[in-house]
Every structure is written in C-alpha cells, then in structure tokens.
C-alpha cells in the first residue's frame, strides 16, 4: 500500500482532532479527502509528512513507518502546499534545481525540462524569475518539482483553490498523467466538483475519522447530488 493510515489519533491538549482515522491509497489511485474547516485535513497531511507525531495509531508511506523514520517517508513523498510559495528571485528552472538538490534527488537538466514540459508551463517562462508568475504558473512549477522528484506518492493540499477553470482543467489532466505512471495521489480539498471529476475514491472526513467512502463507478463516476448531500451531513456532524 502506498499510503496507509491505521487508527490515527491526534490530540492537541484537550482537543481531539483525529479519532481513529483509517484509510489507504494504492499505487495509481487518486484519493480525495473531503472535509469542512477544522475536520483534520491538514493534521492528516502533517502526520504523513512526519511534521507531527500521532497520539496513537500509525501512518505508513510505502510500508515505511513515518514516526520511526520521517526522512525516509519524506524521501518517497512529493508535497504541493496550498499556497505555492517558491524563491521569487530564482527562475522556474533554478527553483526546481535547487529544491531537488536539497532533496538529494537527481538534478539532470533533461529531467527538469521534461517535468516542466509535462506540467505545460510555457517554454519562455522557464528561465524567468518567479516574481512575475501568476498563481497557476507557480503551482505548475511546484507540480513540476513533484514530478521531477519521481517519487511514488503525491500529497496535494487544496490544489485547485484560487485557480481559474482553465487552470483547474489543466491540473486535472496532470493528475491523470500521474495516475498512469502509477503514482498514488492523496488530495485534501473541499472542492467537491473537482474531487468528483478526478478522484477514484472520495473519503468524507468528519469528527476526526472517515465517515463514508465512495468509489467512482462507470462513466458517470459519482452522483454529484448525493455527494453534496453527504458533504453537508458530514459538515453538520462536525
């Protein structure tokens, strides 16, 4: 299993954020974790990234226990934060090169160009400093970085927030490519429509656990109206 959460609990003082969260993501699968504000989405990401330690339960990345070896877990994960912020005074190419260097990954020029090509960033922009980039362009650079790292797991934090419809569509096409390569993708979002469009499975996060899980079926994939209903119920419960 590429990503696995087993009975994760997380308390902050008296506040119980996660209460036995259990789910898993296979290689080549896109899993959307849906939930309202404060449902525990960011905490879940932190636990997979090893940025926090669970009170109980375990988070595993490609069978590596995150708690016991966070660096090894991070070496298998590419993470795209909600608001992509990179080094403004470096170019796209330099940003990726530098961050790959930090991650001790392969920094071959061809690899970087391939990744930039894959995300569809216009070629003229590759050697421009990020200072003048739009939000969508920045996100493309961050995803290019994730692709260039050639890791089996992709974590996305609210990936389509603030993107215009065209950029969102571009982004969804990218996720398809990743799925074909066998990457396991976990996206944390409250964008119901977006999730319905690309996800293979959708988990509803409420009160710190998966309240319900839906699996895409046929060409229709999800019943959007039913999804919406679920979402509101989960929100009400939280």
């Amino acid at each position, binding site marked *: 299993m590429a990503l696995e959460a087993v009975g994760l609990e997380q308390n902050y003082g008296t506040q119980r954020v996660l209460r036995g969260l259990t789910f898993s993501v296979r290689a080549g699968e896109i899993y959307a974790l849906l939930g309202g504000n404060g449902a525990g989405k960011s905490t879940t990401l932190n636990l997979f*990234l*090893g*940025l926090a330690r669970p009170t109980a339960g375990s988070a595993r990345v490609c069978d590596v226990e995150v708690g016991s070896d*966070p*660096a*090894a877990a*991070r*070496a298998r*994960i590419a*993470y795209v*934060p909600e*608001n*992509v*912020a*990179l*080094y*403004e*005074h*470096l170019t796209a190419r*330099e940003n990726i*090169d*530098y*961050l790959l*260097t*930090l*991650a*001790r990954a392969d*920094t071959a020029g061809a690899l970087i160009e391939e990744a930039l090509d894959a995300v569809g960033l216009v070629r003229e922009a590759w050697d421009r400093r990020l200072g003048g980039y739009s939000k969508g362009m920045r996100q493309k650079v*961050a995803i290019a970085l994730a692709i260039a790292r050639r890791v089996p797991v992709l*974590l996305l934090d609210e990936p389509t927030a603030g993107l215009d419809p065209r950029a969102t569509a571009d982004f969804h096409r990218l996720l398809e490519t990743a799925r074909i390569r066998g990457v396991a993708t976990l996206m944390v979002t409250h964008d119901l429509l977006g999730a319905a469009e690309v996800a293979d499975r959708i988990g509803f996060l409420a009160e710190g656990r998966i309240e319900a899980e839906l699996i895409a079926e046929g060409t229709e994939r999800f019943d959007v109206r039913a999804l919406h209903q679920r979402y509101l119920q989960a929100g009400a419960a939280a």
Partner: protein
Amino acid sequence: MNRFRYELRLLLRSRVAAAALTLLLVLSAVAVGAGLSASARQTALIDRVATAQARDFAAATTQYGKPDGEAGYAAYYTFHLTSDRPSSLAFAAMGQRDIQPYVLRVRLLGLQAQLYETETVNPELALPGPFDFAFVLIYLAPLAVIVLMHDLVSGEREAGRLRLLSALPVTPGQLWLRRAGVRLMLVLLALLGPFLVGALVAKAPIWGVAILSLVAILYVAFWAGLGLMVGAWGRRSAFNAATLVGCWIVLVLLVPALANAALSRAIPVGRGVDLTLAQREAVHHAWDVPREAVMAPFVAKHPEWKDKARVGGGFHWKWYYAMHEMGDDGVAGQVAAYRASLAARQAWTERLGWLSPAAAAQSLVHRVADSDLQAHLAYQDNVTAFHRHLQDFYYPYLFSERPFTRKDFARAPVYAPRGSSSSTPVVPLLALLVLSLSAWAGGVVGARRTVS
C-alpha cells in the same frame, strides 16, 4: 558544493543581505585604511619630534659641552627622547594609543615626576573612540550578522515556503546550519579580507594575525550562533530582529558600561596623585635635612661611589641627583601599589569576558595588538630602565668629577624601543570560546527543533 553555491546565490540576491555585506566590507576596508594611516601618522609624529629633539640636543651640546663642562649642568638641561612606535598590528586595534603619550622626554631628575606627563590630546576627538578594525569587529560585525540571521527560519515561514521545505527529505536542522554557515562565512570574508590585506601592508607577524583572526572568527561565530538560536526559536522576523538588537545593546553597550562604572568605584586609582605628592615631599624635604641623611642611603645602594660621595654644606650636584634618586626610591612602595591597582582593573576587565563577548574580544585584540593599558605600562617600564641607563651614564662623570665635554654628549645613551609585550590572555580567549560554542549548541538544538 552545488548546494552551497545555491545558498550563496540565494543570499546575495536578497537586497538587504547584499547591502549589509557590502557595507561591512566597505567599512572594514575604510577602518583598516584609517588604522594604517593613523599608525603612519603616529610614526611620522615620532620622527618629527625626534628631529626637533635632535636640534634641541645639539643646542644643549653647544651650550654645555665645553672642555671644562660640568656633568651636573649637562644632565640638568639635557632631555633624552623616548618613544613608543605602534606595533605592526596596531593599525587594526589602536586601543589607548590615541590618549596615551607615545613620546616622552626624560632627564636625570626624579623619574616619578616625569613619567606621568601627558602629551597633547584633543579630548573631544578622543571621546568617541578610534575608528579602526577593532571597532568594526566589535560593534558593527554583530549587526551585520543580525541582519543576515534574524529571518533565517521566520523569513521562510513568512514567505510561505516553510511547509514545502519541511516536506523535503532533509535531515533536521541541516538546511538551517548550512545557511547559517554560509552567512557566517560571508561575514567573516567581508570583515577579515581587508584586515588581512592591511596585515600584509603593515608586515604584521603571522602569529598575531592568526590570533586576531581567531578572535574575530570566535566573536562573529558567537553572534551567528545566537542569531541561529533566536532565528530558529522565534516566530516573527521583526520579533527576532528586536530580540537580537536587544542582545547587542546589552552585551556590547550595557554590560561593559555597567562593569566600567562598578570597576572604577571598586578599584579607585587616586594613588597616582598620591604618589606624585609623596615624591615631591620626599625630594623637597631632602633640602631641609643634613646632607648625610640623603647620602647615606644612596651610598648603601651604590657602594661603588662610597669614597666619592662626600659633599659639603653648600649645593652640590652629587647630592642633588642622589636626592632625586632617593626621592624615587622613597615612593617605590606607592608606585607598586599604583601599578597593582591598574593591573587589578585589567584583570577584572579580562574576567568580564565571561559576561560580555564584546569585552572579551576587546581585551584580546588590543592585547595582541599591544596597544592597551598593559602596553603603555610596558613602555613606562622601558622608560624606567632607560632612566637607569642615564644614571649609569652620568654618575661616573658626576662622582668622579670628570669634565663633561662635547664628545661625551655623543656618548649619551640612546633610547632603545621596547620589544613587543603582545600576549594572548587565556581567560578572555577561553570565555569567548565557551560562549561561542554554547551559542552554537543552542543554535543547533533550535535548528533541529524547527523542522520537526
């Protein structure tokens, strides 16, 4: 290597960082230049005074170097120049050389009445202290470090990159340590580059240059460690900057000023005045006592003149100079006490290094550059030794009553410059080392915590 190159590029592309480093480089270069020129000015002034003195000496030679010249008159009217040239490292740390006299004329009379003479000093110019490399090191380099280090972590957080960086498979703390290391290296480069050039120009000794560089490295490292510690623990950049500037105020301005106030109260040095008053009494009292009372102790000290030291009731040069020498001897105890109080102040200053790295660095660089109070005391010691040479030179003429002629003026002893009294005091060096290592230890712990 690639990673370091990137860190360097990232840092230098930040306008504030580049400005701070450039400014430090320029100020360090200007300070080294100013130090070299101040050093050259002092040397030139010594030469100028030597020229004037040579003319005065020649005039005395003509006036008193008659075939039947009396050594008593010659010794009374002839001054002998002593001077204290700046050490080859003084350009970096002028220390007290702007207020202590480095030229002094002495004659055969009582030394204690001559030794504390002041030279012309413009006190208003001396008040703020010299602008030299030591100033740039002690006051300004920490501020450059603060500018570079205060947002080490918080800057990434405020720019929104911290989560992305934390999600990379990087060993905890490594990134921040590497970045702090790059910053430390650049500050040292900007600071020490001009100093090393200056040392080459001044032909300073390797050992001294090495110690001074070591002090600079430890001192700047202390601030970098502190910067890392605060930068890693603090939340906001503005808060970090304010905290670090606060540390700077306390360690560089406040602790030394408080300690100085405490020190000058705890160890008063009014004894300097007391000893000159006592010396005057000793010398002038001798006029009103029988000649024997002066000559007996003198002969006891100088048995070689036993047979030639008998003088009658009237004025006699033998008695006159014996009286002056005995006047000096009479206050020897007070001189020792005075020197001890000065030494005590120095010792406590060195101990203060444990509380303030600035005070430790200041003690060290000036001791190495041989331009502090101890250096001046070494000069006074050398003048005292020279004064003994003068006695050894004049006494045979005086007591054997040999004529003092033109030729004899040429034989008068010439002041030989003192050797360097430069040393490396252990206490402040140890203090600086310990403080610097503790700051880094705190910084490393803080940096490790940041990522997790």
